[in-house]
């Protein structure tokens, strides 16, 4: 039964057809898609670059805000940044950052009558409560 069929009767002919101009159109469409993909890739790389630069700038600003560079004042230069990690009280932090001259001025002001008056007023308020 098998011997009756000869492959040469069909050969490589196929019943399939394609629309007119299909291969030309396909080549143009594929090239267009590839160009679009290349553009997308370029844009993506640009986006990544910009994001990296902006992130680095944001981190730098953050560092500068929370850990300002040491003053050129030789007195302040003596104070390391290590203590910053241990200081919790903002008042204490403020006092520690003051120069000797500023501290002296602040002590002078605290010995002033107006200071005492202000302090007493506050104490009085609490006592009344």
């Amino acid at each position, binding site marked *: *039964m*098998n011997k*009756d*069929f000869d*492959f040469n*009767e*069909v050969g*490589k*002919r*196929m*019943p*399939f*057809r*394609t*629309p007119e101009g*299909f*291969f030309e159109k*396909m*080549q143009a*469409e*594929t*090239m267009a*898609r*590839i*160009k679009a*993909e290349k553009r997308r890739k370029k844009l993506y790389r640009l986006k990544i670059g910009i994001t990296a630069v902006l992130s680095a700038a944001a981190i730098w600003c953050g560092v500068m805000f929370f850990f300002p560079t040491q003053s050129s004042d030789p007195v302040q230069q003596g104070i390391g940044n290590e203590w910053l990690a241990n200081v919790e009280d903002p008042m204490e932090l403020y006092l520690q950052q003051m120069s000797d001259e500023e501290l002296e001025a602040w002590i002078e002001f605290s010995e002033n009558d107006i200071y005492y008056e202000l302090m007493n007023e506050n104490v009085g308020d609490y006592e009344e409560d």
Partner: protein
Amino acid sequence: MINEDKIRETFAVNPDKGFGMLMEAFQQPVYWHIRRMVVSHDDAEDVLQETFIRIFRYLDDFRAESTLSTWIYRIATNECIRFLNNRKEQTLSTEEVQEELMGKLMASEYVDYDNEMEVKFQKAILTLPEKQRIVFNLRYYDELSYEAISEITGSKVETLKSNYHFAKEKIKDYMTK
């Protein structure tokens, strides 16, 4: 005769021009290989475009361990398998996919039904299991060597020879029914 070295050299200097040459040389044989596998023209068009997009993406990585044409056929065959597997994932069994392909063959705008024997021959090919169908098409239509088909499919040459033999026997049976 396709000059694969020339295509690769041109691609290295001018990717668009090199790729244009590659498409010019391989577009038609690869389309017909895909068309025989997925049957419908519309599906073949989609698979062909995906194939060439992949070729473009990875052509830089091609290291000439095989010929360019074998590499291209491997990508095209994998794309066909991916396409057919996607159909299976959409709750279709292997038999249902086979029936679907047969249906597409019998109701397509781009099939010439005047020659009954040619149509019947394609139907006979569609009755083959997927692996045998790939081997038969690559050997019979594209006249690739068993070694090349082995690189494309990852199967041993002896297995391929036996696949081709059984495929031919099944087709003969179908054609003489």
